[in-house]
């Protein structure tokens, strides 16, 4: 099987400071990779390099495109890369305000990606948007409301619907359960788990919350000071951590 994403020696520096370095991994279709580490460990830098929001200084990000098979995303023309990020890729931001258009209705937010790839039938767009709102447990009666009238949890679910409506194959998530309170987090995690399984999505999730990766991720990458210090099966890394930093990270979590 061809990996969906092959990452080779990604490095990003901010002047003399290392954002991330020597990062390599393969992600297979249907696989969920968690990237954990404390603030400043380089996990968000890495995610942004992979998703094309930041230009890495070196390395390759090879995506298995539908049309032409594996291609280095960094070598693609910008138009193609942006097209990819609207169709086969999705990016869920920690703050829904970064991933939503706050002045556009919920339906319009979900419909945007459809219209961006050429949907021109209002009724069809609306129907699909409605289906997706239902999938993320938002009442379709709220379809014409703006996200500013939604709770934080609803906004995040709307952002997920907006991202998944074009049936992407790879989802990048940056602290998707970030600023949400605990019960809302649980509901969102449950929802994400269901969607990932049903759609056979591949995902890369950056978080500092180990509970999130335990529930969502098949595999784990632990980062410290821009480097990957440990990788493995999620439960193995969390239950039998090998690296000093991972042991510290795991033992720092309050047990309830």
């Amino acid at each position, binding site marked *: 099987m061809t990996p969906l994403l092959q990452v080779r020696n990604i490095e990003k520096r901010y002047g003399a400071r290392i954002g991330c370095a020597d990062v390599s991994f393969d992600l297979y279709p249907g696989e969920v990779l968690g990237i954990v580490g404390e603030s400043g460990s380089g996990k968000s830098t890495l995610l942004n390099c992979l998703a094309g929001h930041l230009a890495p200084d070196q390395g390759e990000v090879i995506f298995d495109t539908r049309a032409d098979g594996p291609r280095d995303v960094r070598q693609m023309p910008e138009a193609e890369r942006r097209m990819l990020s609207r169709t086969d890729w999705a990016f869920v931001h920690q703050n829904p305000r970064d991933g939503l258009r706050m002045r556009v209705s919920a339906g*319009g937010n979900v419909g945007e990606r459809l*219209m961006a790839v050429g949907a021109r*039938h*209002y009724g069809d767009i609306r129907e699909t948007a409605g289906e997706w709102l239902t999938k993320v447990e938002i009442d379709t009666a709220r*379809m014409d409301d703006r996200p500013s009238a939604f709770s934080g949890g609803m906004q995040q679910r709307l952002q997920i619907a907006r991202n998944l409506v074009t049936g992407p194959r790879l989802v990048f998530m940056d602290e998707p359960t970030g600023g949400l309170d605990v019960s809302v987090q649980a509901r969102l995690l449950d929802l994400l788990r269901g969607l990932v399984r049903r759609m056979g999505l591949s995902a890369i999730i950056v978080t500092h919350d180990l509970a999130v990766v335990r529930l969502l991720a098949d595999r784990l990458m632990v980062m410290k000071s821009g480097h990957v210090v440990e990788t493995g099966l999620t439960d193995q890394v969390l239950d039998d951590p090998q690296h000093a930093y991972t042991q510290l990270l795991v033992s720092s979590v309050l047990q309830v």
Partner: protein
Amino acid sequence: MSYNFAYLDEQTKRMIRRAILKGVAIPGYQVPFASREMPMPYGWGTGGVQVSAACLTPDDVFKVIDQGADDTTNAVSIRRFFEKTAGVAVTESTAEATVIQTRHRIPETPLRADQILIYQVPIPEPLRFLEPRETETRKMHGLEEYGLMHVKLYEDIARHGEIATAYAYPVKVEDRYVMDPSPIPKFDNPKLESPALQLFGAGREQRIYALPPYTKVVSLDFEDYPFDPSKAHHPCALCGAEDSYLDEVIVDDAGGRMFVCSDTDYCAGRLTQERPHDPAFASTQY
């Protein structure tokens, strides 16, 4: 005191002509230009005036309309400006004019290949409503990412049950660039496909764009909500025209109103043609 022909110096006019040529070469593309200070405030047509200055020749016959009317303050002052600085002949007749500067209308009388229509444009960027960043909108034009335009129309239908955009209705030019036709009523959109050269000048925003003769111009819409250029179903109260765009005019303190042609030349022309001996209409001024 004497002015250079059409007020602007020759260097500036050349610079503007270069921008115009570039605009003609890439229909619908917004060409940046070094807009000059003009002796009138922004919002009064400084972009259109600079394009007019760059286009006028001593033999031209110049016409200015504001919302269709030749006799409003804005139209009169721009017409006088070029009468004085260029010494060109002026007219109120669409058919007689060779260069027409307009604010917010396209004349009802069909234009010809030997005419130039120059639009005053307040905001040239059709994507501005949803994307405030200029760097981003330019990239969207460059990469032909126009999904956002339809989001705007989607929002219209979701909120009003129909595409409620009635003026500055966005169009796609030659299957490539999405363009703001300036705040003309959508009723005028079909007239954008014309034998005449059409130029658009935005002074404050420093942009020029163009529609060369016979350019394909398609108003954006949805399959199930097709573009509809219709207007209020009234005939003109003065000339009886049913095919022209109408202004609503309040006629008394009791809220009495009537609908009359916004194109004053068109209306007056029909009146003198069809009812030449009706004194009540011959003296009407509006």
